[in-house]
């Protein structure tokens, strides 16, 4: 960090497309002590860069933007479970987990859940169900810890951000807003 930089913030920009969003851009703003912007770097969204910025305790410019950023962070964090277990099983475990979680009682997620449908997950005789559920839960809990431990949000703010991020992730995953825009939902 340059010596005269006193604060660094990031900003996610996701311009709306005809349906959904265009690919995300990540801006990193460097501020002087008098809040004057010294520099702004623009890059295409990159999961690893975002993880690095979180590790460096770089917050987003505001809470709405933080929620957008964390929805993309959730997407990256949940991808290993999706890759390992496939879409149908992962969808089933994820939706079941969300429905049973306290997130289901929060406004953003509550409004979305009636439009999200998945099978009951196959439980089998082994560990796949538990392992997949643990991967889902760990991915979401790790984002919660990032908000409170790395970015130092108070619990209530962190809950709001993560709830909005999860809602946005589910919305995009299950094409809820896109379907609504087309008049289907």
């Amino acid at each position, binding site marked *: 960090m340059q010596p005269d930089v006193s604060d660094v913030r990031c900003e996610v920009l996701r311009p709306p497309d005809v*349906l*959904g*969003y*265009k690919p*995300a851009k990540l801006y990193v703003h460097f501020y002087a002590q008098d809040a004057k912007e010294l520099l702004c770097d623009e890059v295409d969204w990159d999961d690893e860069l975002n993880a690095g910025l979180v590790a460096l305790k770089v917050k987003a410019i505001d809470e709405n933007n933080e929620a957008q950023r964390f929805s993309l962070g959730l997407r990256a964090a949940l*991808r290993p479970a*999706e*890759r390992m*277990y*496939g*879409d*149908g*099983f992962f*969808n089933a475990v994820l939706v*079941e*987990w969300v*429905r*049973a*979680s*306290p*997130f*289901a*009682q*929060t406004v953003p997620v509550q409004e979305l*859940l*009636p*439009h999200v*449908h*998945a*099978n*009951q*997950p*196959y439980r*089998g*005789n*082994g560990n*796949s*169900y538990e392992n997949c*559920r643990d991967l889902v*839960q760990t991915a979401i*809990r790790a984002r*919660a810890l990032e*908000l*409170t431990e790395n970015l130092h949000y108070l*619990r209530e703010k*962190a*809950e709001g951000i*993560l*709830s909005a991020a999860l809602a946005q992730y589910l919305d*995009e*995953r*299950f*094409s*809820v807003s*896109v*379907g609504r*825009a*087309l*008049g*289907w939902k």
Partner: protein
Amino acid sequence: MEPLVGSKPMVTQVAGGTIPPMPSQDEPYLVCDLLLFIATSSEKMALKEAARQLELPLEGKHVEGVGSFRTMRSIGPNRVNVFETDMGPFGYRGSAATAMRAMSVTSATGIIQLGMAFGAYPTLQNIGDVLVSSSIVTYDFRTMREVPGGNPPYEADYADPKNPTPRFEARESLLNLFANAADDPGGDFRVHVGTFLSGGARIQSASYRNHLLRSVPSGDRPFVGGEMEGVGLPPANVDPAWILVKGISDFADGADPGTFPERRATACNNSVGFVLRTLTKLTEKLQ
């Protein structure tokens, strides 16, 4: 309310009665996890035959405002529906528009485009081998430059740094699924995983095929073949939702048209059979 964020575990109990009832669905077979896209009558026939052999349902449905589709209900953990498209990406029933519509009405998170492709290497691949896309390169997206005195007096540049020909990655979960099944494809054919050339042209020229293979950057895996519908799938979702699983029906050289119907049937049967067999075996993998 129980804290969402903090030192306490957020959620651990998911057993039986704690799960809220699933909301009722107006169209119970419309919502699904995976979409199968088919584009020709040969692919439709192959799908019917493979479903019959594997004893899977394939029921026609019609939903007002959505149109006709088929449901295979659940194959293992995936609810699967089938949509027909026109050949190629263009038009209202082309792969691009169908992908956007079908994903939004079904909430599907993955699309498997079935059917036929041309193979890239006649000496290394056989008719009926199945190609699985790790990515596609949309070769129509290129810069055409004047070449004074050249023959022809223009050339295609696929690596213009200001306007590079894009490469789109396939869905990781589907790539993982089908690449892992490649060693045991369930028939007398091989499975090749790699990059596809994708564009709107019906290529029947070995010279043009070789020009593309030589000139277009393939990324981190070699080209395995090419086809026409895949180019329409990336716009359906920012996060890649699609994969191409296609049988080799030809080598884009226009050779031996008399045997094409037979080659086409072999290509469709192998690709459809490989996909359905892999999906049915998923439950065995889930312990």
